[in-house]
C-alpha cells in the first residue's frame, strides 16, 4: 500500500475513533478496564508528586530565603531555618488537624455512610472544573455520589475507577443542583457558570431574596441530601426574559483551597426526596 494512502487511512481511522468515542460518551460514566488501567498508572504518580510537593514546599521556601546570609550568622541562621521549618511543619499539621476535626464533625452530623478522600490532582486541561481524589470504586465511590466539605457541597463524582475518582464541582456549567433559599424556602436550580460563582435560576418573581441569604440543597434532585449548605446570595436580578428572578451565589466551600473532601456513599434512592416535606416558616 502506498505510504500516503496508509497515512491518510490511519488519520481517518483515529479521527473517526475519536469522534465515535466523543459522541458515544456524553452521558456515560466511563469506568471500563481501559479507564481503570489509565487511572491505575496515573494515581501513584499523581500521589507521589503531590506528596513530594507538599513535603518540599516548606523546606524550599526556607532555603530560598536563607541564600545570601552572611558567614557570621550562619549557625544562627541555620538554627532559625530549622526552627522555621519545624514551625511550618507544625502549622501545617495544626491546619490539617483543624480540617480533619471539621470533617469528623461533618461525618458525625450526616446520616449517611461517608468516606474521606484526599485531592491528588486538578483538571488536566483547566477547561473543566474537576479534581481527582484518591478513592475509587474499591472504596465504594461511584458515579453521581455527592461530595462535600464542612463549609458546603463541592460537587459530585463524575468518573470513578477502582483506585481513584474524578469530582466535578458545582461551579462547572454542566452541573445543576436543586436548591432552596434557607430563609424563604424558595426553590431554584443552581448551575455553575464557569467563574467562581454559581447562578441560582427560576426563582419566583415574588421571592423575597436578598444578599447574604444562605442557599441549601433541597434534596429533590436525587443526588444531594437535603439541607447541605451550598452558598450565599451575592446579588439578585431579573432573568433575561423577565419571567423569573436569578441570583449569583458564591459557594460557601472554598473550592480552590480544599485538600480533603467527604464523599457521601449514597446515590439516587438513598436519600429522602419526597416533596412537601420542607415546611415554610
Amino acid at each position, binding site marked *: 500500500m502506498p505510504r500516503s494512502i*496508509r*497515512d491518510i487511512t*490511519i*488519520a481517518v481511522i*483515529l*479521527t473517526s*475513533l*475519536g*469522534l*465515535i*468515542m*466523543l*459522541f*458515544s*460518551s*456524553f452521558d456515560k460514566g*466511563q469506568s471500563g478496564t481501559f*479507564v481503570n488501567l*489509565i*487511572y491505575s498508572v*496515573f494515581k501513584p*504518580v*499523581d500521589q507521589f*508528586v*503531590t506528596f513530594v*510537593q507538599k513535603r518540599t514546599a516548606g523546606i524550599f521556601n526556607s532555603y530560598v530565603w536563607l541564600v545570601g546570609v552572611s558567614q557570621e550568622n550562619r549557625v544562627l541562621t541555620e538554627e532559625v531555618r530549622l526552627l522555621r521549618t519545624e514551625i511550618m511543619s507544625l502549622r501545617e499539621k495544626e491546619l490539617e488537624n483543624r480540617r480533619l476535626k471539621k470533617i469528623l464533625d461533618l461525618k458525625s452530623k450526616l446520616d449517611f455512610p461517608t468516606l474521606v478522600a484526599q485531592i*491528588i*490532582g*486538578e*483538571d*488536566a*486541561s*483547566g*477547561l*473543566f*472544573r*474537576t479534581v*481527582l481524589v484518591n478513592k475509587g470504586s474499591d472504596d465504594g465511590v461511584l458515579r453521581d455520589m455527592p461530595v462535600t466539605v464542612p463549609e458546603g457541597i463541592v460537587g459530585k463524582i*463524575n*468518573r470513578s475507577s477502582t483506585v481513584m475518582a*474524578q469530582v*466535578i464541582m458545582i461551579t*462547572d*456549567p*454542566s452541573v445543576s443542583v436543586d436548591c432552596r433559599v434557607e430563609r424563604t424556602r424558595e426553590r431554584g436550580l443552581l*448551575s455553575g*457558570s*464557569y*467563574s467562581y*460563582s454559581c*447562578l441560582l435560576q427560576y426563582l419566583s418573581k415574588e421571592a423575597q431574596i436578598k444578599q447574604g441569604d444562605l442557599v441549601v440543597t433541597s434534596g429533590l434532585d436525587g443526588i444531594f441530601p437535603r439541607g447541605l449548605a451550598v452558598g450565599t446570595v451575592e446579588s439578585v436580578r431579573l432573568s433575561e426574559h423577565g419571567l423569573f428572578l436569578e441570583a449569583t451565589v458564591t459557594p460557601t466551600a472554598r473550592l*480552590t483551597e480544599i485538600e480533603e473532601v467527604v464523599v457521601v456513599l449514597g446515590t439516587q434512592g438513598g436519600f429522602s426526596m419526597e416533596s412537601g416535606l420542607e415546611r415554610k416558616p
Partner: protein
Amino acid sequence: MKDLFFCLVFGSVSIIIQCCVLGKIFPMEFKPDLTLLVVVWVGLKGDYVSGLFSAFFLGIIEDLLSGAPLGLFSFIYLVAYMFSAFVSVNFDVDQLGLSWLVAIVTSFISFCLVFLARWLGGQVMFELPIIEFILIKTIMTSLCLIVVKPLLDNSWRGYSRLIGAT
C-alpha cells in the same frame, strides 16, 4: 516505536505537571496546555504515524484526567497534530516564529473546539467572556513554547544519541 515512546513519555509528564503543579503557578482556568505543545512539537518534528498515535493516546489520557467526555481531546489533539504536520511539510519550521504561530493557531482552535463541544453537549452558561478567556489561555499556552520547545529539542537530541532514533 522509539518516537512514539518518547512522545508518550513527554506527553504523560506534561499531563502530570498540568494536574499537580501548574495549578499552583497559574490560575486554574488559564493554565497552559503543555500536552498540546508536545503534540504540536511532534507534528512539526516527528514521524507522521507515531505522531498520530501519540496525539490520539495523549488525548485519551487528557480526557480521563480532565472533565472532558472521552474522545474530545483525542479528536482535538489529532486535529492539532495534523495541522502542525501540514505546516511542517509546507514551510520551514526551524524558525521559532513559525512554531509559535502554529502553537497560537492550534491552541486557539483547540480551546474553541472544547467550548463548542460543551455548548453542543448541553445548554450551559459561561459567565466569563469566552473569547477573551480563550485568547488569554492561548497566549499563556503559546508563551510556554519558549521553554517547552528548547527542552523537547534538547531531550530529543539526547534521546536520539542514546537509542539511535532518527
